[in-house]
């Protein structure tokens, strides 16, 4: 049986792991390799590193830490941040990342998704989607969310974008529901269910985990393949071994 994946997300800024509430006011929570190893030992199924400062400043991911992580850990990891070309993707993948995730640059130039999929296969192309419900009730995509002063609200509908990137060659979608991110009241089940209904590739839920029940809920109700969280893991409020045991008790397939 294919397990549901528990994925700690490490937002990286200047080589350190940070976390903010609703994508703002970031504070340092730890050193990258140290946290990566801790999560690997605790039974994380995969890790995602988002260099949240990279896209807005036109910078690239610092390859140095990618290689250090690749040498140390034996579970898969994905790197996001400032990947704007096939060459950028190649460098990160060759440094040892298993997947790359693109977000703002894919919105600037959607063909980038196809170019990377053609070069390395769809299995390593993750598209990150930052989404917020607008006053008219529609979910729409946000761009450059790493820097609040540059964040742009786009006219593009979230579901429309998710369909578009799959047609272009995305092998996985991470849906960051900004309305629920960082406030620990649960994943945005309604939005994730809508995204699930139109996704034939794996879908990863992001934004809102506060208790083990929230994970059970998002797997059971939104049928996502993986659930991503940051602060609850970084603070130790939720331990991955206990979380997985709880999910197993509830009949959800996890890797113990």
């Amino acid at each position, binding site marked *: 049986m294919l397990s549901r994946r528990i994925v700690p997300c490490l937002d990286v800024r200047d080589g350190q792991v940070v976390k903010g509430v609703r994508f703002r006011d970031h504070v340092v929570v730890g050193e990258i390799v140290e946290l990566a190893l801790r999560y690997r030992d605790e039974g994380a199924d995969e890790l995602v590193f988002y260099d949240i400062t990279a896209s807005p400043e036109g910078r690239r991911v610092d390859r140095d830490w990618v290689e250090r992580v690749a*040498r140390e850990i034996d579970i898969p990891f994905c790197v996001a941040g400032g990947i704007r070309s096939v060459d950028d993707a190649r460098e990160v993948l060759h440094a040892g990342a298993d997947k790359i995730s693109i977000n703002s640059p894919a919105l600037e130039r959607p063909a980038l998704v196809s170019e990377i999929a053609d070069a390395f296969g769809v299995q390593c192309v993750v598209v990150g989607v930052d989404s917020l419900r607008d006053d008219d009730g529609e979910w729409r995509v946000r761009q450059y969310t790493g820097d609040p002063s540059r964040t742009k609200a786009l006219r593009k509908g979230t579901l429309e974008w998710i369909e578009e990137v799959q047609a272009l060659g995305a092998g996985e979608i991470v849906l960051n529901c900004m309305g629920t991110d960082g406030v620990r009241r649960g994943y945005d089940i309604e939005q994730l269910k809508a995204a699930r209904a139109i996704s034939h590739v794996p879908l990863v839920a992001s934004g809102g985990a506060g208790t083990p029940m929230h994970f059970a809920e998002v797997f059971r109700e939104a049928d996502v393949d993986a659930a991503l969280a940051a602060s609850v893991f970084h603070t130790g409020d939720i331990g991955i071994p206990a979380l997985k045991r709880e999910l197993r008790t509830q009949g959800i397939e996890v890797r113990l």
Partner: protein
Amino acid sequence: MKVVLVDAGGTNIGSVRYALQRLGTDAELTSDAARIRAASHVILPGVGAAAPGMRMLREAGLVDVLRELKQPVLGVCLGMQLLCDRSEESDTECLGVIPAMVRRFVDMPGLRVPHMGWNTLEVTTAHRLTAGLRQGDAAYFVHSFAVPTGDYTLAASEHGEAFSAVVASGNFMGMQFHPERSAGVGAQLLRNFLSL
């Protein structure tokens, strides 16, 4: 022991190399025929698509070199698929040392492709390569094409239907998942390969 990693353009070469280093083995990355022939163990990693993978092997003049090897050879992920007869992926002729066709996962409602994540392994045939593997151990998969089960299957997994997770035909072996990213289970399997 002299382990070589065949450079067929796979992006996971670094990860496989690091995994071997964690086991205390330094593997050389090469596309040189003489060095490959002289190795005690040959690993063909692979991430990407079958057609460009085979093209790289042809351009490097390695097709016959690999086919004629007598030492233990391990294909990982796409590398395992390249050991088979043919792949449905762009209808590609492969190395033909494992008698199998590589097929795309069939379209089924609710079946997500790529098959991505940790899936359990079911040992179907005892072999030194899978020594110590327990029923239900999980490994990390990422792929859209798969090798059906057959006489060559050592361990199977399931995604919509059963498929080969570990194969062997004589000295040619393959793992569809990524042992380099499959935690302790992957390390054990790589250790087994190196002990052959």
